[in-house]
């Protein structure tokens, strides 16, 4: 069972890895027939990687773009979500439950439906083709989950800790800085990881906001090559791009799996 699960999760990825290391000739042999393909399959090459890294704009450019958007989104969202989550944690009664319900509904909402309205706004305010501005809608889309996660983390802290800090004369900022946020570190890490993942993967908003090729984020850049022609996609180069684009996430998921899992499960428990 475990082997089957591993196979199911990894096979498509491993196939991409294999494809990326084969020469174009091996991928689409002129003589049709699997036998010819199999015969040449052993010819490993880094040709595909060289191809995409030398492209115009080079492939690493969109990795950097995605990283910039991801980081600024994560920071901005946390900056807004921490006070909001603390306020929600302190706000009992009807206002609190209405706010929770709104956040939950927003967390469920398929954000693709917002792109047209956002695009109009972006054009009116001159925000299109601006990577940092992209963090604004991204932050809004990450906020509901982030606030719900952090709120539940605040709720889980023993309330006496904050009381003790109050009695010692710590103001709100000092309590957050010295007592609450250090204790929330695990929840902050898992929230940050989930936000970064979301931002790294987001497609429709980036697709409609960004048109300059040196600004494209990874998903858009990939899709743009993909849609250039349905029949003559350079699959080898493509697989190489997939591998390179997946590597940061691979590292993130492997290193942060404990936090990602706890973040998601915590969200589920409180949701």
């Amino acid at each position, binding site marked *: 069972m475990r082997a089957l699960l591993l196979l199911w999760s990894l096979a498509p990825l491993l196939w991409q890895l294999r494809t990326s290391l084969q020469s174009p000739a091996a991928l689409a042999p002129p003589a049709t027939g699997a036998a010819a393909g199999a015969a040449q399959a052993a010819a490993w090459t880094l040709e595909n990687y060289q191809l995409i890294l030398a492209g115009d704009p080079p492939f690493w450019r969109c990795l950097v773009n995605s990283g910039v958007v991801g980081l600024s989104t994560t920071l901005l969202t946390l900056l807004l979500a921490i006070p909001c989550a603390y306020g929600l944690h302190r706000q009992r009664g009807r206002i609190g439950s209405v706010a929770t319900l709104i956040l939950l509904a927003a967390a469920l909402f398929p954000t693709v439906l917002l792109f*047209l309205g956002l695009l109009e706004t972006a054009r009116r305010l001159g925000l299109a083709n601006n990577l940092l501005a992209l963090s604004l809608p991204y932050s809004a889309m990450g906020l509901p989950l982030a606030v719900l996660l952090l709120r539940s983390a605040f709720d889980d802290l023993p309330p006496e800790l904050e009381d003790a800090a109050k009695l010692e004369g710590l103001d709100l900022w000092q309590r957050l800085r010295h007592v609450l946020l250090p204790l929330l570190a695990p929840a902050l890490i898992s929230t940050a990881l989930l936000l970064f993942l979301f931002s790294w993967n987001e497609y429709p908003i980036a697709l409609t906001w960004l048109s300059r090729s040196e600004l494209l984020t990874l998903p858009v850049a990939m899709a743009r090559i993909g849609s250039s022609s349905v029949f003559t*996609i350079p699959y080898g180069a493509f697989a190489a791009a997939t591998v390179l684009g997946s590597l940061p996430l691979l590292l993130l998921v492997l290193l942060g799996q404990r936090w990602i899992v706890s973040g998601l499960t915590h969200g*589920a428990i409180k949701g």
Partner: protein
Amino acid sequence: MSLAPWLLMLPALLLLAAVYAGPLLRYAWLSGHASSVLTGLIPVPNDGANWQRLAGDARFWQDAFQTLRFAFLSVGLELLLGLAIALLLHRPMRGRGLLRAVTLLPWALPTTLMALGWRWILNDPYGPVNGLIQGLGGQPYGFLSTPATTWLATVVADVWKTTPFVALLLLAGLQSIPGDLEEAMQLEGASRWQILRRLTLPLLLPYLGLAVLFRLAQALGVFDLIQVLTGGGPGGSTESLAFYAYLQAMRFLDFGYGATVMLATFGLLLLLALAWLLTLRRLQGRQP
């Protein structure tokens, strides 16, 4: 001295209002206007012509059917597979952390990336699946040029990507069930199936409910996968509502009608979410 809690929430709530409520209100307004290349993208009131057009738009209804078909099948499969994986991961074993991380990988990758991967895997005739078929002596098959297999391919790709998410939610649910309950049932002589049916599933219901609600909402808005894997084809047979709205706005530059399609999709989503919540309440009421 101390800030009122709602003041701390204000900045976040304002941004949420601007990004969520703003566009939806704008759609409501736009859907009463013609705003396309014909009007120079200047909104002109058109007395509900958008809604009349929607009612008679065969392509819209076809897409609605295709979207629902996609959503129901993929969410159903994700639930079944997700439950199986959650039960598997729930058992204590060596390397569970690593297995969980690997299971999570498909969910963490960008949809567009993997959609292209699937395009290569199902490629006719060079992809590995057709390679396998040819190796077994068969003829290569155009998976992405036949409507029936194309929409199934979209389901497979979606199931592959989002099952880990469902599995993880359900795993959280499983871990919230005290272990002594299961032991108590074992002592009473219940079989594994009876334990699953009478204990685990009822206690898992809130998590199942949340997973379905979330997945249903996301599946009804399916866009990335369709755009990159099939482009809505062949012959519009996999076109989804969100993709249709995108085409109206971005390709035909008909913002008025695009907004109308978005709103209609949102309405459909609300209806389904409501129906599911009511079903869930009835299911929960039936519990002993």
